[in-house]
């Protein structure tokens, strides 16, 4: 039970805010400031804990360049349903966890102007942080769902109690939308659960799923010894007294496979293995579509509500407009990422066949969101609404980047472009987490002063608040996708990868850069430039305070760092994303060798030609 045990470390990381919330709840009445300080200290501590992963060589660390799950542990939770307390980090979740902890600190810092029911606010805020961290770390579907719901309720109250004038409407809208999503998700989870069967996985796959532990192999090349090791690990595991192992042994005792019972599981990694290596999810479910087709659709809708993509996005502008500034930061910075995270962690790897069928649909949703969000942003009069629609537009890149399934027969199963898209999407998630949180904060700073957000009633802020305006313009440019700032990398990676998949979508997605520049520059012009301030409370436009500065500056600095040296992030992220894409590409090669993608021809001749030519090119001096 030391911190060097990942079990303890990760649990501490996740549950510390919740425990702190509990402590706050039972603490006797304190001054409002003290609640804020305590919460801030807790969030900072959690952030420091996440930073602890960076020290290399420790027992609990996160190594860059490793694709597999790290710091993995699983403990039986509800063994009768195979539910485990199962967490780990990999390159997909780790940056999001760090981002969550980081933004929580900043958002707590941004919570200082909140003076209403501070105790309740802090408690809910901390609970929210637990939920968010848990979602990113959980690898058990049930656990994932629990955290997903845990995060939902505090958010509802945070919007509904501390929000603006239409807060009840916004909160209920947010709640209903998300609830619909999670109900669909739950249905899909149960579908997958009842179709899953652990006994169908071989030892190697079980090891991949984190169920059995294989000792580190000295030479990873040797597939044979790896297999043997996995087998022996499986045997060891069966001998152990874990309930799962016992049930596994009991079921596999039945020699006749048709009589065999199924060993259901909620293990996401195991479900991924089943989705990719077995036909468990291929059975008919409804209207001639397979189980995984429906599961994918339901999960995708559930996640896409969170992303959000058009047409399921209308909760976002309302929620953002009504939510208090720090909650907007969290909402845009982290909550939206859960959708993208779900798509890349759950939708595609578990239901590859459905993903392959619906790739165009997914991409189209992404592109449509990009365009639609940008157009809608252009029309907004409310500053915060504009930023909210920009989120819709920017998150479209994420959906698009994840969906560009270009590793098909027609391209010789070349996964590189898809990798680029997926990495770009992941990068965009982090970048958008930074830039949109920053943008919302910047709106909040000025809203705190003049209490309105009407774009036509601003102007001349540069003269009155020069430092603030400089920061704001920097962060808005990060959102615009200016090179050297974080937004650029994700967008350009995604956009460049699309052509390989569909040139029509590529052209449309490239066109969004114009619209994005349009609405952001226009907003900057209306708010920061100009000779004089045109709205009420002009006298309240005082220069930025140290507190606000210390929230804005880290965001801008990060935006610059990631924009200039994206490898700082990609080094951690890319191996995992690449591994996932490689697996899906390999899956495509096995399951769709002829290529049925409507973009290509049926017999794969082009692919052969492609390969021959590439080979010829490479062999020539």
């Amino acid at each position, binding site marked *: 039970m030391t911190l060097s045990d990942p079990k303890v470390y990760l649990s501490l990381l996740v549950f510390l805010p919740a425990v702190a919330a509990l402590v706050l709840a039972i603490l006797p009445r304190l001054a409002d400031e003290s609640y804020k300080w305590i919460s801030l200290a807790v969030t900072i501590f959690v952030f420091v804990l996440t930073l602890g992963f960076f020290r290399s060589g420790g027992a609990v660390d996160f190594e860059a360049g490793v694709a597999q799950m790290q710091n993995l542990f699983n403990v039986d939770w509800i063994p009768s349903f195979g539910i485990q307390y199962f967490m780990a980090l990999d390159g997909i979740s780790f940056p999001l966890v760090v981002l969550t902890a980081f933004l929580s600190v900043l958002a707590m810092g941004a919570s200082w102007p909140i003076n209403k029911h501070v105790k309740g606010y802090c408690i809910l805020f901390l609970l929210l942080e637990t939920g968010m961290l848990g979602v990113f770390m959980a690898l058990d579907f049930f656990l994932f769902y629990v955290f997903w719901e845990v995060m939902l309720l505090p958010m509802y109250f945070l919007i509904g109690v501390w929000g603006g004038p239409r807060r009840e409407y916004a909160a209920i809208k947010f709640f209903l939308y998300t609830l619909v999503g999670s109900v669909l998700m739950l249905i899909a989870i149960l579908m997958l659960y009842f179709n899953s069967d652990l006994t169908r996985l071989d030892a190697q796959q079980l090891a991949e799923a984190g169920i059995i532990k294989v000792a580190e192999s000295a030479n990873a090349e040797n597939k044979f010894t790896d297999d043997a090791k996995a087998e022996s690990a499986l045997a060891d595991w069966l001998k152990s007294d874990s309930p799962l192992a016992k049930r596994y042994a009991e079921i596999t005792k039945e020699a006749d496979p048709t009589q065999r019972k199924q060993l259901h599981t909620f293990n996401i990694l195991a479900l991924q293995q089943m989705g990719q290596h077995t036909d468990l999810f291929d059975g008919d479910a409804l209207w001639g579509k397979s189980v995984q087709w429906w599961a994918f659709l339901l999960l995708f809708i559930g996640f896409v509500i969170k992303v959000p993509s058009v047409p399921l996005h209308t909760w976002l502008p309302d929620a953002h407009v009504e939510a208090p500034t720090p909650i907007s930061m969290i909402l845009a910075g982290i909550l939206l990422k859960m959708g993208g995270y779900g798509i890349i962690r759950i939708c595609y790897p578990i239901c590859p066949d459905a993903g392959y069928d619906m790739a165009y649909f997914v991409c189209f949703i992404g592109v449509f969101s990009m365009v639609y969000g940008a157009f809608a942003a252009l*029309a907004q009069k409310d500053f915060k609404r504009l930023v909210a629609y920009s989120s819709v537009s920017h998150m479209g890149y994420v959906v698009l980047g994840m969906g560009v399934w270009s590793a098909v027969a027609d391209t010789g199963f070349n996964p590189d472009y898809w990798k680029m898209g997926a990495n770009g999407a992941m990068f965009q998630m982090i970048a958008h987490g930074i830039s949109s949180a920053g943008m919302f904060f910047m709106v909040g700073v000025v809203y705190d002063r003049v209490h309105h957000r009407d774009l036509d009633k601003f102007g001349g802020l540069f003269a009155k608040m020069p430092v603030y305006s400089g920061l704001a313009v920097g962060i808005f440019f990060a959102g615009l996708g200016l090179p050297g700032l974080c937004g650029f990398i994700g967008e*350009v990676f995604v956009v460049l990868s699309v052509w390989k998949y569909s040139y029509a979508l590529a052209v449309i997605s*490239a*066109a969004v850069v114009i619209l994005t520049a349009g609405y952001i520059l226009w907003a900057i*012009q209306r708010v920061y430039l*100009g000779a004089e301030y045109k709205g009420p409370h002009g006298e309240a436009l005082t220069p930025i305070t140290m507190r606000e500065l210390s929230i804005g500056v880290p965001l801008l600095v990060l935006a610059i760092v990631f924009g200039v040296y994206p*490898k700082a992030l990609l080094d951690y992220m890319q191996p995992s994303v690449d591994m996932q894409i490689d697996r899906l590409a390999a899956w495509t090669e096995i399951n769709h060798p002829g290529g049925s993608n409507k973009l290509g021809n049926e017999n794969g001749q082009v692919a052969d030609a492609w390969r021959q030519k590439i080979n010829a090119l490479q062999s020539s001096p």
Partner: protein
Amino acid sequence: MDPASTLPILLMAAWLVPLASFVLIVLFGKYMGPHGKGAGYLSVLAIITSAIFSLIAMFGVWLPNHELPTSGHGDHNGAVSSATEESHAPTEHAAEHHETEHEYPNYSGDWYSLGEFGDLKITIGYYIDALTVAMFCMVSVIASCVHIYALGYMHDELHEPYIDHEVTLSSGEHLHRKGRFYRFFQYLSLFCFSMFGIVIAGNVAMVFVFWELVGICSYFLIGFYIERHSASAAANKAFLVTRVGDFGMLIGMMALWASVGTFAFGDMKNEQGEVTEKGLFSLLRPEEHHHHLAPPPGMIAEEERMFAGDPDGESVPAAVEEEHNTAGQWLLLIAGVGIFCGCVGKSAQFPLHVWLPDAMEGPTPVSALVHSATMVAAGVYLVGRFYPCFSPEALLVIAYVGCITLFIAATIAITATDIKRVLAYSTVSQLGYMMLSLGLGGWVAGMFHLITHAFFKGLLFLCSGSVIHAVHTNDMTYMGGLRKKMPITAYTMLIGCLAIIGAGFPLSVYGLSGYYSKDAIIEQAWSFASVNPQHAILKWAPVGGAFITAFYMFRLWYLTFAGKPRDEHRYDHAHESPRVMTGPLLVLAFFAIGIGWPIFHVNDLLEQGRPVGTLASTQGELLTNLTIPSEHDSHVPIIKQPAGIAAFSTALAGLLLASIIYLWRLLNPDELKESFKPLWGFLSNKWFFDELYDYVFVKPTLVVSHCAAWFDRNIIDSILHTAAAICRACSAVVDALFDQTVVDGTVNTFASGTWSLGLWLRRIQTGNLRQYVMFIVIGTVALFVTISIVQAYYIPTN
């Protein structure tokens, strides 16, 4: 010194010094001396350091290590002779004379990578050849001059408070604000950094990165007077219009990326000098193909894939005859035109030229540096850099765009009265010349004109700035006769005007810098037209353009400096600018005169930088009757002599016409204006481009955006609200029909039953201890009785 190791370091130093200056000024600019005056000096110091590094790179490393082409192309006569020897007729097929290819030294490498995905790699790297070094020198020298000049020009910003006479507040007063001296230099430094970044960039992606960065610098600098609405609007317009071009550039990049899989220009070599990764140039112009343009297999496959889903597509490969292999050509065209779109935006070519005149809202040094000499030339530079990848059809597009641009911009410049706008349109027009030249195969001519133009246009703008500084207006109708008040400005500007119209002794080697480059362009156009008679318009447009150029440039000069003052008040207050401003004028005037002279070997240097394989004449694959001639073919006397004479005579005619109208006043310009009123209106409204775009693009976009927002609020949300209302109605119905009767009835009955039971039981709860004991006893008895009954009757005994 080994150029392969020293050049990147030197140029990187030159590149990064302005960045350091920028960072320092951002962080500490406010504290640098009174009103941030030190920031200006820091910035100047930085750019001069860059200039020194660049010059060291040029004269200390490049020239000693790379023998300039000795065949004497730099010398006009020599060029003629050698060209005649080697290329017998302009129509000769290109494949036969690849022996004329010269050494093409270049160095490329990566500093670090932004992302690697399998074989795909996006990096920050460098690609250094003669063009890079030349551009570095040109940019850093001009930037140094402009920086120094700006120290004087922006002096007003050091005052506290600065009074902006163009902004009137709602209270009726002029705006008083703090000076922003340091802010200006901060942006200038950032701009220099970005511009160097474009020049040194080793791949298209990096070009794009810095492309955007110069765009944003331009945005900041145009909008420097943030309080002026016109300035911020112009800044937005500039950025957005260039973004439209970038959209095309992105498409081009995507097409390349998906098909070739690399952005790098040059080949990456390892320590032993072996090629590890091929760059775009060697992929598209493979060595075994004699450096002729040949789409790589990836591109052919990608094109097939693209059109596979489109059986009716016009480009099904089988439909074309055998000897012209069009495979991959369409994609190549898309890529080329796409990249060129970016250049169209940045270099303000038709149809995206509308932003540049508005960009003159920025301070004049900005106009000189950013919007004439360097940034807008970046588009031309990119076309030059990317030259090996343009197919002949793409080049034709470039040529036509350039041709249209040079003509439209020149015509608009005739009617403009704002001194800076005249220069801006002249810039657009000159950029059109360069594009035309590049599109017609005149690579060296185009790049040469880029460099000479940078000097003389920088000079012209600085002169105009000096004038504006003196009379506090841009409008030429308030000027006149200023040459007596400010002689240095007047005569350096005259030099600039002469340079831009290409003044020189025809058929000789003596002239101002513009003479060499402009004549080369016109020669190339004539050479092109001689092999492609169907494109004869490309032959006459530049000649006509030369006429108009001469006319409006001298109109400008006469209106400003000659004649009588038209505004006595302004004239009386006018004065020559301080030395910090006139010094740079003199330096630039020197370059404007002499940079084209053969002794400076600029032409030779560029000849050395000519991309490999682009000298040979090329046949179009899609347009089979299109031939891009070899540039050396333009030096044959049969083309050179008539072209030179035509250029000279049209320019002279333009000059004369301007003199007749504005100097000697033989024709009254107002009467002319009246008699050509429709034409004049058309031109002074800039061909109604702004209005057209407003109606065709801006308004519909806003309408669509409002539709989207409306759709959100009224359709999607309505659906939601309706759904919610239906749910509520349903639940109300259910509530009324079922809940309130059945469920509530049950519950209520239960509740009231419980209630009355409770009331009844309440009476038992007397609180009397003894009674409770009785209950216990009775309860026990009852229990026993019950159990025994149950046992007796219901539990079977065995």
